[in-house]
């Protein structure tokens, strides 16, 4: 159902459909036609990201602060004493759209910071006095200037001390603090973390979640506890990875254009992206699907750029896509979009949170209750998109070997031709063994020539992706469009596009 529809009407219609689909179950649950509106509700909503003004003494110091905040649920605007004069910096901080200020320095401040931190603290303290509702975070060495902010107990907005940000370390305690400040506990992006962890524990597998939504993209890595150890979850909420940013710059447009088969110039593409922003549920057929998937791939690319540490981890056992961007696209197209952008050599299973229920489940406060709920729904929670096998290190121009898929209905053999996609039909719920024989050594998580891999089916079946890692696309738009169309046709396997 599109956003903007009346929620009571949506619940009523969906309830009636459930009654019609399984009257016996409805009777057991005492659910009648029109009765769904009276059921208890669990409500979760995503919130528009707020703006964080970030300042530091030097450009070098401001960069890691921006990198940390940008993946912690904040839209950012920044300046440094090195390149921004105090008047412009005051303008940034006094802007009506700013909800919080992060001012940081090394701990202890580096030589190039020491001269400016005192004046910067005086400037921020003056703004804090004028806008007492602002939350102020003093990170690293800036904490030494806390007394400049006077009596904190009389201030409605908090003044908090945070750890210093470090170049190359994007997550950690400062990111956790900023997420806590950015998003309320019932926010859908934030709840995805707890939802992913519950799913990882129930499946006992490492789970990654990628969400592309209207206001932000979210990436979660959840690992169940091993050998009595604690489970782990890493959450990044990146507002710049929203499906259609409010004011798309040339970089955003070019990136969407790179994935577009539509052949539009920058201006028309920008117009369409603005329309997508204004009415995200409209224009979701025909050309609109192509545009949406190009925008989703571009957003996924931005999400991956702000979360580079994921590339250094072992690939997850299961990657789950969720969010509005994927809600109105064919399942096979979603799987291809994921593997186009999040390319890593290895074997990965992909699934779709088709009902977008992981976030509501994650918002259940009690962890045991949350796990119980996920365990109860786990068979229906996800739509399996299929298994993707992505070898790296193939030589171009000749057959790389062959694969035999041994399934319940018999064996099928395919020649492995580098540069393309091979689709083996493997419906959801079916399992098979794929035996690969490569001519040369390739990387498939580990290096080797012969592999036997357990694979499971999905709406996209088993896809052997023999394209480059990372993906290389032609510079010419027409050639690129043809290639993207051909890949799409491969995975759709003759289905309506």
């Amino acid at each position, binding site marked *: 159902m599109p956003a903007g529809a009346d929620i009571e009407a949506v619940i009523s219609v969906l309830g009636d459909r459930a009654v019609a689909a399984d009257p016996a179950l409805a009777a057991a649950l005492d659910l009648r036609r029109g009765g769904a509106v009276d059921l208890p509700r669990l409500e979760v909503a995503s919130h528009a990201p707020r703006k964080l003004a970030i300042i530091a003494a030097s450009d070098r110091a401001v960069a890691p602060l921006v990198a940390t905040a940008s993946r912690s649920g904040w839209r950012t605007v920044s300046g440094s004493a090195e390149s921004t004069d105090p008047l412009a910096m005051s303008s940034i901080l006094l802007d009506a759209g700013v909800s919080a200020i992060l001012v940081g320095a090394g701990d202890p401040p580096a030589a190039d910071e020491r001269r400016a931190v005192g004046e910067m603290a005086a400037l921020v303290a003056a703004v804090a006095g004028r806008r007492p509702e602002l939350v102020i975070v003093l990170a690293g060495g800036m904490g030494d200037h806390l007394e400049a902010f006077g009596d904190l107990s009389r201030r409605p907005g908090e003044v908090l001390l945070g750890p210093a940000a470090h170049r190359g370390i994007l997550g950690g305690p400062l990111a956790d603090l900023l997420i806590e400040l950015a998003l309320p506990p019932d926010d859908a992006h934030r709840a995805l973390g707890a939802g992913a962890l519950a799913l990882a524990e129930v499946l006992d597998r490492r789970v990654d979640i990628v969400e592309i939504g209207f206001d932000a993209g979210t990436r979660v890595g959840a690992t169940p506890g091993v050998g009595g150890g604690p489970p782990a979850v890493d959450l990044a909420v990146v507002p710049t990875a929203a499906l259609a940013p409010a004011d798309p710059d040339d970089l955003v447009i070019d990136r969407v254009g790179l994935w577009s088969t539509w052949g539009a110039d920058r201006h028309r593409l920008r117009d369409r992206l*603005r329309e997508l922003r204004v*009415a995200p549920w409209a224009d979701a057929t025909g050309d609109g699907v192509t545009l949406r998937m190009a925008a989703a791939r571009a957003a996924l690319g931005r999400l991956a750029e702000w979360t580079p540490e994921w590339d250094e981890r072992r690939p997850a056992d299961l990657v789950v896509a969720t969010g509005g961007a994927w809600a109105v696209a064919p399942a096979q197209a979603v799987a291809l979009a994921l593997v186009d952008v999040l390319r890593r050599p290895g074997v990965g299973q992909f699934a779709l949170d088709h009902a977008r229920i992981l976030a509501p489940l994650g918002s259940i406060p009690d962890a045991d209750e949350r796990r119980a709920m996920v365990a109860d729904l786990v068979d229906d929670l996800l739509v399996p998109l299929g298994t993707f096998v992505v070898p790296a290190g193939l030589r171009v121009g000749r057959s790389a070997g062959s694969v035999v898929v041994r399934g319940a209905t018999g064996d099928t053999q395919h020649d492995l031709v580098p540069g393309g996609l091979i689709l083996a039909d493997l419906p959801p719920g079916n399992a098979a063994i794929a035996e690969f024989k490569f001519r040369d050594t390739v990387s498939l998580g580990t290096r080797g020539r012969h592999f036997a891999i357990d694979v499971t089916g999905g709406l996209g079946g088993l896809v052997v992706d023999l394209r480059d890692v990372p993906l290389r696309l032609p510079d010419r738009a027409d050639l690129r469009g043809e290639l993207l169309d051909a890949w799409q046709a491969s995975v759709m396997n003759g289905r309506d596009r």
Partner: protein
Amino acid sequence: MSETDLRLVPTRRLIVAPVDALFALRPGDRPLVSAGDSVVVGAPIAERLRDPRLDESEVNVADDPRPGERWTGEPRRDEEAVPGGELMFEWHGHWRVASGDIADSVESPFAGIVRDVRPGTGITIRAAGRGIRGIVALGGPTRGRLQVGAVGELKSGGLDVGSAGAILVVGSRVDAETLTRARAMGVCGVVVAGLSSKERRDYLASESRQRAALHRLPPFAVLVLDGATRRPLAGAVQAVLGALAGHEVAIVIDPPMLVFDMPNLVIPAPPPDLVRIRAGALSGREGRFIRAIGPRRFPGGVHLEAGIVHLPDGMDAAIPLGDLERFV
């Protein structure tokens, strides 16, 4: 038509009330009103500095100076100008003061009550009246007599000098050349359904060149009601604009809105089943919503919730619910 089915169609508010408009201020700008003040149309509410700068000044501590306050110093010997400005922050016993030489007056385009004044941040005024919300407004706050123009695209040659002082409703789309010519001819504003990104960029570049030349720009704003592609104004909006024709209205930037103060204007509610198609092959057309038909398969291999819409030419079309909107 079932009422529940109709409620599945996304809604859009035709008229918004109350309207709280924010007039942004930068450091150094001088507010001329206080919270609780009544302002009339055209009342100066602030002085905006063209080129603010930050000076270092010695401020008498006995005056208990605080950031954000106005400060006026003693003129230096042989100088007539009195130093002064907005106190920003103190550092090493000296105050940084935001000031400038040339200031432009900011006038309220509507009557209302001042809700909040924050030097350096903005002035919020609650308008005495109602508004029609747009998606973006470019330029600055303005007011004028509403003049409803031709349906469709307005070209620069179609502008008439008699439109000086008016806010023009130009229909589906307008180009940057027409906008700059309209501003030069004394038109106060333009209301349009769609403004493409290229025209938007070209117009903003023209405006920024004018500002760089230190001209004081006449108040002019472009209010975009729908989006970036060509489509006619919604019938319900056209009806309200038609009723407002010839009367004074205002355009504000934050939020983007057309504000009018006509308490006696009766705005008839649009028929409850009237829906507008905002995307797809039938974009811009309006019809009667018949019923919701559940998920349907559409080009592109997607399954979307859909409804049947009866169009004025007698055709019934299955349209994704996401492509529809109705005004409430």
